[in-house]
């Protein structure tokens, strides 16, 4: 009996041992079989998935912390085809909620290739629509109705501009592929966008820690003052209507450090609807005329000619010039804007009456080398280096260029035959407003990254003239404004500035009926807190800058002193005396 049990036990042991051994052999065989790689790959496939993690695009603020460009959540609405229970119900619901046709959605759900597991029905769907769709799905699920099974909502960010059109020319926009176009969005696209990271997201919860965190894009703080920007845009829009101008630009800059406080240009677009771009602009240079469009500035340029003449010692403010109404330069006769002879004038008078003949005489007296040498030092013909995309360089013809003629020495002196952008003019003249030091204009105030704020230091682009020349010329320009009782004046504040009315070149010579009107000015003259450049294109109520651009400057100056808290001269002098 005992032996019988022993035998049975032995048989059982042998059987179990063989079975166990077979299992081990099978495991080893599978491990080293030809199909092992396939099994491993299958295992890997279900062990997780590669995901591209896009960082949240950095925000853009104005200098006082107002959000100019942020992000909002939108959804990709899709369907997991394997989970679809009722394609008709899904197509009907999605068609209704997303504004699509039933047939279109139904076709996607039913006729997609067999290998597809998921189809995107619509992307960039707003949160409100998705919330109501999700509510409907939940309601049906709670009632045990699974006809909408398979619906999936994948959230992601979309650029959003809470101020719509405000500062659109400065900001630029971001398309759906996440790329920035124009302005800050293009210039700092890499910084704002951050670095997308492709990561392996394991299904194994033990490995959840391996998912890396993707740093957000860098947040930017601009030098723009939102409230001033809004005022300037409003003044520009009103001016275009009031003076019948086609387009215009106004820039407000701090002459001490080159910070752009406001920069308005027309037309502007709602950045949340960037598809309007093609209906508003013929080409990219029109997007921001302040930096993208070069033009012949006319008499505002006389500030630079006079600066060079004073700095070289060619003339002094009291130097007299007898204006006969015409001067010959390079064999061509140059005349004044009204073709009159203004008689004996000192240099203030030359600026006050904007005498072309006088300025052409100045450039001739200085000589080509001096005149063009100074224009080079003022940075003309070169980009200003402002941190906005699409900057034009303008054109400064110099002796030796094939298209330069001797008469250009005369015409260039009063801003014809030379092209500049409004930003170039502002930068060049900043040397006069800032004690001889020329500032590099910039829009970026600081960057926020890694929890730190990095302020952008101001840069200077050289000192083309001495501080003494700058002071003298500022006094001359201020006096000339006061003596002519210019419409540019602002009660309570001493301002310096210069008008500019320029003929517009065409393929057939200069346009006889239209002009570009400009004004450049700054104040208060004893300690300039702002510089303003105004350019109105083809005004129809008057062709003269003194009647169009000058009052616009005054209005901008008025709002600027209010919003920047610049007290009148009297108040400031009293405060200093105390």
């Amino acid at each position, binding site marked *: 009996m005992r032996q019988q049990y022993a035998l049975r036990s032995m048989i059982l042991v042998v059987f179990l041992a063989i079975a166990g051994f077979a299992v081990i052999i099978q495991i080893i065989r599978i491990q080293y079989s030809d199909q092992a790689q396939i099994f491993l790959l299958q295992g890997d496939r279900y062990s997780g998935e590669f995901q591209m993690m896009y960082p949240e695009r950095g925000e853009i603020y104005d200098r006082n*912390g*107002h959000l100019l460009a942020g992000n909002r959540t939108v959804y990709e609405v899709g369907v997991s085809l394997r989970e679809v229970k009722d394609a008709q119900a899904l197509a009907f619901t999605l068609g209704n909620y997303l504004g699509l046709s039933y047939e279109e959605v139904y076709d996607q759900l039913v006729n997609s290739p067999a290998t597809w597991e998921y189809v995107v029905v619509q992307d960039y769907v707003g949160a409100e629509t998705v919330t109501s769709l999700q509510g409907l799905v939940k309601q049906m699920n709670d009632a045990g109705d699974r006809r909408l099974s398979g619906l999936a909502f994948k959230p992601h960010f979309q650029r959003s501009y809470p101020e719509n059109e*405000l500062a659109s020319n400065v900001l630029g926009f971001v398309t759906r592929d996440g790329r920035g176009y124009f302005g800050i969005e293009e210039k700092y696209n890499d910084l704002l966008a951050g670095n997308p990271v492709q990561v392996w997201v394991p299904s194994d*919860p033990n490995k959840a820690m391996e998912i890396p965190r993707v740093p957000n894009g860098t947040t930017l703080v601009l030098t723009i003052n939102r409230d001033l920007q809004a005022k300037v845009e409003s003044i520009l829009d009103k001016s275009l209507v009031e003076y019948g101008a086609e387009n215009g630009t106004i820039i407000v800059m701090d002459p001490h450090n080159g910070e752009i406080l406001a920069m308005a240009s027309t037309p502007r677009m709602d950045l949340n609807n960037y598809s309007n771009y093609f209906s508003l602009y013929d080409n990219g240079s029109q997007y921001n005329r302040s930096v993208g469009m070069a033009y012949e500035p006319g008499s505002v340029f006389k500030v630079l000619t006079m600066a060079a003449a004073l700095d070289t010692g060619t003339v002094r403010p009291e130097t007299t010039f007898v204006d006969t109404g015409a001067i010959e330069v390079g064999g061509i006769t140059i005349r004044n804007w009204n073709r009159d002879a203004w008689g004996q004038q000192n240099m203030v008078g030359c600026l006050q009456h904007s005498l072309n003949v006088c300025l052409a005489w100045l450039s001739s007296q200085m000589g080509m080398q001096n005149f063009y040498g100074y224009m080079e030092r003022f940075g003309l013909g070169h980009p200003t280096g402002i941190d906005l995309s699409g900057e034009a360089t303008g054109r400064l013809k110099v002796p030796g260029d094939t298209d330069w003629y001797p008469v250009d020495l005369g015409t260039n002196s009063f801003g014809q035959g030379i092209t500049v952008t409004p930003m170039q003019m502002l930068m060049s003249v900043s040397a006069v407003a800032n004690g001889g030091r020329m500032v590099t204009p910039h829009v970026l105030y600081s960057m926020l990254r890694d929890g730190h704020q990095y302020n952008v230091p101001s840069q200077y682009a050289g000192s083309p003239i001495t501080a003494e020349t700058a002071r003298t010329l500022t006094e001359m320009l201020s006096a000339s404004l006061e003596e002519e009782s210019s419409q540019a004046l602002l009660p309570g504040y001493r301002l310096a500035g210069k008008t500019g009315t320029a003929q517009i070149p065409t393929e057939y010579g200069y346009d006889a009926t239209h002009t570009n009107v400009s004004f450049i000015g700054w104040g208060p003259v004893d300690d300039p807190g702002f510089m303003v450049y105004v350019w109105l294109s083809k005004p129809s109520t008057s062709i003269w800058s003194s009647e169009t651009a000058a009052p616009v400057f005054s209005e901008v100056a008025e709002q600027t002193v209010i919003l920047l808290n610049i007290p009148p001269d009297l108040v400031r002098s009293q405060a200093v005396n105390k």
Partner: protein
Amino acid sequence: MQATQIIHAYKQAPWRVQRQWVGAFLLFVIGAAMIAALYLDVTARAAVAGREIQELRFEITAIQRTNADLETRLARLTSTAEMQSRAVALGYRPVTPGELDYVPVPGFAAPEPAILLDAEDVTLQQSAFPAEYSQSLLEWFEERIKFGGTQ
């Protein structure tokens, strides 16, 4: 004869030997079961913690999205156009320079642009979880062998 007797005196009965073997085997089984149970418990808790971390991460992402949405919404509600229309509706109008009174304050410095350091980007910080929470015992041993006691 004497020696044989001594050995015999200390030789245990067969049933005692069998019981010792069974006891040893049971001890081994119980030990293995305890280790297995412990391992299972730790693994299960790690899995639950891992899943919770995943869920928390999704939650963080969702909260970040909500924050971004709310921030943009707030910016919309306080946009220039909105504030102007609300100011006009409340009976306010833009001030003119003549209506402003300036009071000299000795030592007053104009405010600098807002410093936005409070907008700290938490996603840029190092992982808050120490390695002990994620590495297995084997990984810990491996690390010790590789780096000694310095890590």
